[in-house]
């Protein structure tokens, strides 16, 4: 097993070298940064699915939340907003939200004063409605005002790493709420519920122009490490600056990844992991053995989501633009699933391997498809059938084919993943 993993990682390393050689180091280094972020996200999913058996298909939502968080924290402040009435109006909206929440919570406890059954139901609906109207009555004018006077609220100008952490915290908060509502659902139902919630999150972020600028996008978002142009300004050569700055970001990403890996491995190797596997395996029995299944599943869901939030924030920091319309379930949810299933669910090294491999394949699939097309085209010209028309267009579209092919082939030969979960047999 160990031999196999080592071989695979060696192979991956060789693949990276080959890509570096063919496509250049600067290109490869930034893909590796992205791969590291994806690895973090895949790790999050691995915790949720591989450890906890939770079918989270709403990854995209958490990535967006992370992205929005880092944008908010690290983008320079918008003085126009801070000097307008906007903050005050938002403050009022927040207050309205708090009051609304208080009303709803109070009504949930109504049974303490003897209101139960149908009356409580009526009261609950009423409370939600009042809270909704109250909040809307404050937020709508505030949003309109901000959009018309200062465009949007802008950022806080904080350090990007703080933004990453905030991304994690925000994702945790949302995961907590989702978990509270949905974790009781059975697997497939949980999947579709989370898809639904991620679509809701996307719709909100995309349309809350006052907060996120919506489809108008925010850029450039600062880097936690020096940008190439900063280094260039410091008198460095272009290539060198590029490599160095990307190397810096990569290093930071790898440090984050390494810390997370260490924490997870430690937890999963011990009784915590055993308990989680037991819950995944048979939650009825686990509950009878004294494990608090709901709380534990919530814990694991939140934990995984934190990593997704951080990873999503890292990605946005790195590409320097937050564009809500660019989030697609296929790229931001299903791709991650492919990573851990091909890599090996329940095994962190598998998740890491899968994330890097699939991301690299995704990136090189385009040139690869083109190379294949050009070769075929060359042959067909030689044997007199003429060249293939529109190679550029076709090869770009065939990248999805290449990715699909890799997935099916990998699964066919390793249905449990390339580095599958190991059964813990003790001496």
């Amino acid at each position, binding site marked *: 097993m160990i031999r196999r993993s080592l071989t695979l990682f060696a192979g991956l390393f060789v693949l990276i070298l080959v890509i570096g050689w063919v496509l250049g180091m600067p290109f490869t280094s930034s893909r590796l940064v992205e791969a590291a972020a994806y690895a973090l996200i895949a790790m999050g999913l691995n915790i949720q699915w591989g450890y906890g058996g939770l079918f989270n298909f709403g990854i995209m939502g958490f990535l967006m939340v992370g992205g929005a968080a880092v944008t908010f924290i690290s983008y320079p402040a918008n003085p126009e907003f801070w000097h307008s009435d906007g903050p005050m109006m938002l403050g009022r909206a927040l207050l309205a939200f708090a009051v609304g929440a208080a009303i709803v919570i109070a009504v949930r406890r109504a049974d303490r004063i003897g209101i139960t059954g149908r009356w409580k139901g009526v009261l609950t609906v009423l409370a939600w409605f009042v809270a909704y109207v109250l909040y809307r009555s404050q937020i709508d004018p505030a949003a309109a005002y901000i959009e018309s006077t200062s465009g949007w609220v802008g950022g806080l100008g904080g350090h990007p790493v703080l933004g990453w952490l905030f991304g994690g915290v925000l994702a945790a908060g949302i995961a907590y709420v989702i978990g509270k509502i949905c974790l009781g659902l059975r697997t497939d139902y949980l999947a579709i519920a989370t898809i639904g919630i991620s679509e809701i999150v996307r719709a909100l972020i995309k349309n809350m122009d006052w907060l996120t600028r919506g489809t108008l996008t925010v850029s450039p978002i600062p880097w936690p490490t020096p940008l190439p142009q900063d280094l260039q300004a410091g008198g460095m050569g272009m290539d060198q600056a590029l490599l160095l700055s990307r190397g810096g970001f990569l290093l930071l990403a790898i440090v984050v990844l390494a810390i997370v890996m260490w924490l997870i491995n430690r937890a999963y190797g011990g009784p915590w992991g055993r308990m989680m596997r037991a819950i995944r395996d048979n939650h009825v029995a686990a509950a009878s053995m004294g494990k608090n299944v709901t709380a534990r599943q919530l814990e694991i869901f939140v934990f995984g989501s934190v990593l997704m939030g951080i990873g999503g924030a890292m990605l946005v920091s790195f590409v320097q633009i937050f564009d809500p319309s660019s989030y697609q379930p296929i790229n931001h949810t299903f791709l991650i699933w492919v990573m851990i299933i091909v890599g090996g669910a329940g095994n962190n090294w598998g998740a890491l391997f899968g994330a890097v491999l699939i991301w690299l394949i995704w990136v090189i699939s385009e040139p690869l498809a083109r190379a294949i097309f050009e070769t075929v085209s060359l042959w067909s010209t030689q044997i007199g059938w003429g060249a293939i028309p529109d190679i550029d267009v076709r090869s770009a*579209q065939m990248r999805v084919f290449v990715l699909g092919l890799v997935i*099916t082939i990998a699964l066919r030969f390793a249905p449990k993943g390339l580095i599958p979960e190991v059964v813990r047999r003790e001496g």
Partner: protein
Amino acid sequence: MTEIIFFINQVVISGLVLGCIYALGAIGITLIFGILRFAHFAHSELMTGGAFIAFLLAAAFASWGIVTPIPTGFVVLPLAMVLTAILSLGIDKGFYAPLRKRGAKPVTLLIASIGVTLMVQGLIRLFFGTGTYSFFDTEPKEIFRIDTAFLGSTRPLVITEPQVLMILVTLVSVVALHFFLTRSRLGKAMRAMADNADLAQVSGINTALVVRVTWVIAGALACMAGTMLALDVTLKPDLAFNIILPIFAAAIVGGLGQAYGAIAGGLLIGFAETLAVFNWTMLFRPLNAILPDWLQLPPTLALVPTEYKLTVAFVILVVTLLVRPTGIFKGASS
């Protein structure tokens, strides 16, 4: 009266058509899920592929000069269904059967089906490009405008021929599938296998055959769904892919593995989407005449802004699941 006809056009017919689109897709998904216990993501590509097959056949018919009273796309449907069934058998043999044989988990099959989705998408674009095609290039699309003046309405009821056909086809296929599953020998064998494949084998059921039958039916249904959708809208490479999420939602809300659930879920999601953004002022406008000035209806009175349309469908989905965690009809789970 005009307002009511408007409501019927905008909500009843629209919701019905949309619901049928979702339901048609959902029956196939629900069937595969019921028997093979995995969410077959590539169903959308079977639908699109089936529609393209039907399109090619229809084009061939047109070039041979065959004229039919109902849309050609509909006439060639049986043949296209057969071809798609063969295609889906091939896909199973090539990609899913080897995984099943090695005891893969449902989620692995799901991911494999994502792989298949990507491959089929690539191939469709390779051969057909990214453009749109219409079944009605050579023949007109019949639009029924039923005059409702006798009811005192100034608006007609509007429905197109493909929509009428689609509603009929959906009903027939759902009922047929339900009876097939609950009454026929093979249908019961399929359910038995869905329940406990090992025991089904022990009972002497030829499980390989059951799997084949499942794929044949699923392929045929997918082709039908795709073609009906393409007849109503236009044919393009992302025809069904774009709506696969609501289709899955419909299948799950209805209760996975339940034929009737597909139609219930489809209609629920379809009507939810339609009603959520419907402008109620259009219906209650006559009230303005009797309401005092300060209580006049605003020009738009919708539950949510149109950009949140999808959201509402999903909110309803989540709420439904919370109230009835196994779907409207009690569904299966992997």
